[in-house]
């Protein structure tokens, strides 16, 4: 397939994809390698990495850092994907309608996205989670609420430019219905940028989630990397490993997703230009 050929040309993107697949594998097999609840106290507290049977050490309560990282991967990926899914879906619908119909809907959407550009989105996310009480759902909703305007702006721009293209006008002269023009003619032609922004958004969502969890706004029943770092920050002087390793996990995951996103961008966009 020509897409894969183009993607393959970007070697760092392939590297990112391999790392991402490893992280997905780690998340999927967390319960096999670390069958214990990651919140459970399983051994001697404050063990440095490699001692007392802890690969990456343990924290002040004797929780296994490695187990937390494996289980936290699941949380990060899940929240990242769900929030992106909601944001991209909602943003595409709003941006598409505003771009296609223009007029009042468009005015309204532009004002709303302008407002979202003005309010500090992370504080807004904090507020939303704080008001809704921390849980997976509230975190996903909060991230999606602060993320969708970016998608909406992008899709609106694409729709605005595509709807004046002659091939879309030709469909109007054939008497084609709006819904068919939107779904069959315009949307397929702006899928590439949507896929790219979506993939990069997963990375941002993971960063926001870890930030929320770090501030103590994570779902209290689910292990996450941000929570591990937040809980370990008081031990900075005595147990550096508690904060360090989960941070590296976030770094590598986000980096891998960004690499894949850039690879997608390189692979999808020149072709779009070449074809149109």
């Amino acid at each position: 397939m020509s897409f894969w050929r183009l993607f393959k040309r970007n070697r760092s993107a392939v590297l990112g994809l391999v790392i991402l697949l490893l992280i997905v594998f780690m998340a999927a097999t967390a319960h096999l390698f670390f069958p214990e609840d990651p919140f459970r106290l399983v051994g001697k507290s404050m063990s440095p990495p490699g001692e007392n049977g802890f690969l990456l050490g343990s924290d002040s309560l004797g929780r296994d850092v490695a187990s937390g990282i494996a289980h936290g991967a699941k949380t990060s990926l899940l929240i990242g994907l769900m929030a992106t899914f909601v944001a991209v879906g909602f943003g595409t619908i709003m941006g598409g309608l505003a771009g296609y119909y223009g007029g009042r809907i468009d005015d309204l959407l532009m004002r709303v996205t302008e407002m979202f550009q003005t309010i500090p989105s992370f504080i807004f996310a904090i507020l939303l989670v704080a008001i809704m009480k921390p849980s997976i759902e509230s975190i996903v909703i909060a991230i999606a609420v602060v993320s969708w305007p970016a998608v909406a702006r992008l899709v609106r721009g694409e729709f605005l430019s595509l709807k004046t293209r002659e091939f879309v006008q030709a469909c109007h002269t054939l008497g084609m219905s709006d819904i068919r023009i939107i779904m069959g003619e315009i949307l397929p032609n702006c899928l590439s940028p949507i896929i790219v922004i979506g993939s990069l958004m997963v990375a941002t969502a993971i960063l926001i989630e870890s930030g929320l969890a770090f501030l103590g706004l994570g779902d209290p029943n689910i292990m996450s990397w941000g929570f591990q770092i937040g809980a370990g920050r008081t031990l900075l002087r005595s147990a550096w490993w508690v904060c360090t390793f989960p941070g590296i996990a976030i770094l590598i995951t986000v980096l891998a997703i960004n690499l894949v996103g850039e690879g997608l961008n390189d692979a999808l966009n020149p072709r779009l230009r070449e074809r149109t």
Partner: protein
Amino acid sequence: MSAPLLEIRDLHVALPAGSERPYAVQGVDLDLAPNEILCIVGESGSGKSLMSRSIMGLLPKPHVRVSQGSIRFGDEDLVTVSDARLRQIRGSDIAMIFQEPMTALNPVMTIGDQIDEVFRFHAKMRRKERQERALSLLDDVHIPDPKATMSAYPHELSGGQRQRAMIAMALALDPKIIIADEPTTALDVTAQAQILKLIKEMQEAHNTGVLFITHDFGVVADIADRVAVMQGGIMVEAGTAAEVLNNPQHPYTQNLIESVPSLTPRPPRVQAAEPVLQIENLTKTFRSGGGLLGFGAKERIVHAAKDVTLELRKGETLGIVGESGSGKSTVARCIVRLVDAEEGKILLNGTDLRPLGRAEMRPYRARIQMVFQDPFASLNPRTKVGKIIAQGPMIQGVPKAEAQERTRELLSIVGLDERAYDRYPHEFSGGQRQRIGIARALALNPDVLVADEPVSALDVSIQAQILELLDEIRERMTLSMIFITHDLRVAAQVCDRLAVMRSGVVVETGPTAEIFRDPQHEYTRALLGAVPGKEWRAG
């Protein structure tokens, strides 16, 4: 002939590996004498532009480079000369004018500063002196208000004025050679005529050698002393303007010149008197700015169509001609109901289409169809050709099998292989895509075809084929056609009657032959007077 200014010998410009052909320019020999205008003519992809850039060392390095040959200028070879020396030559000895003055000028720098740079880098002059020189240059190129233009930014000038400023910049240090790369292609025909006149005037005043790149034989006829014709990177013919234009030797040149439409209108055809489409007092205004959030900013009002009244008779082709901004395209879009006109009537066989809603309009859609300008933008890149053509009839309720059969039939009518059915648009050339667009319009068996500049994006040889095809199908399917164009040569060959538009107003209508013979309105006269090469192929 005096010693040449520039001697190009066996020039090869290599393209990167994997390109369509190994060389953009292959084995070109060319001399440019002082005080002459040498036109390089060719269609898109002929290598004429890259050749001109190789002289200045402006090839997109490192992918495209001169791989062989020499370009002698004085006693130096521009291919091997050092970068520092090349920089000295650029701007002072050899200057260049580009096609699109909007993008060729730095958008965030004033015209004065951009001209000033040439002096600063090549000549030791005081600031005051430099400014005076720049002012007198702008005056030389007949810019209305040189003082104001000095401190203006490019976006504040009109297209023609920008190109004048560009020419002033090129002339700054009185260069021996000016290379002009399609300098009038982006301009309207009246502005083009003025710029051509200006280039000729400047060339004569300064004894400059001008290398003029163009695709338009009309322009060649107006301006060239000598002509070189390029095809696929190879120079196929060169000679004096009179020789090449009137007695071309190479078959390619013959074909190109043959394809240039004649300015003599074709003989009028027998006309039916009954109208198919009547447009009465059509008015469309575009507004922007102003409003509640404009805060006192002036509302911009553009009268794209003002009280336009037209009549299309059965079986005829009505041409709407005008320059950019004349509103001709808006009228076309109002007729096919892509744009809603605010006043007037669009009577198709007596039914007014203007007030119809979407659903009411649908059955009438099949009666009026449109062919678009840009063959690359008018086909959905993600839809197969067969579906693009067949979906029209299917929307109108034709069964799938029948629509498919009709599509295959249409593909052969417009001269395409039946295998095109399962291919994507990007696999076709511009001309072939335009054929697909025509087939899509014909699939609904329309009474009226509205063609909006259908050939202006195509090379001249392809253009002739598409015009022929349109003529043929009009006869065959008894179509009536509205043909929008800016090109009076095309209009002369295609249209039975003409309507001339300017700033949203129809200034003159009448049979094509009459308008060409005896234009009534001064604007029509100006338009006709500005057609390039009118003495050459007037008839």
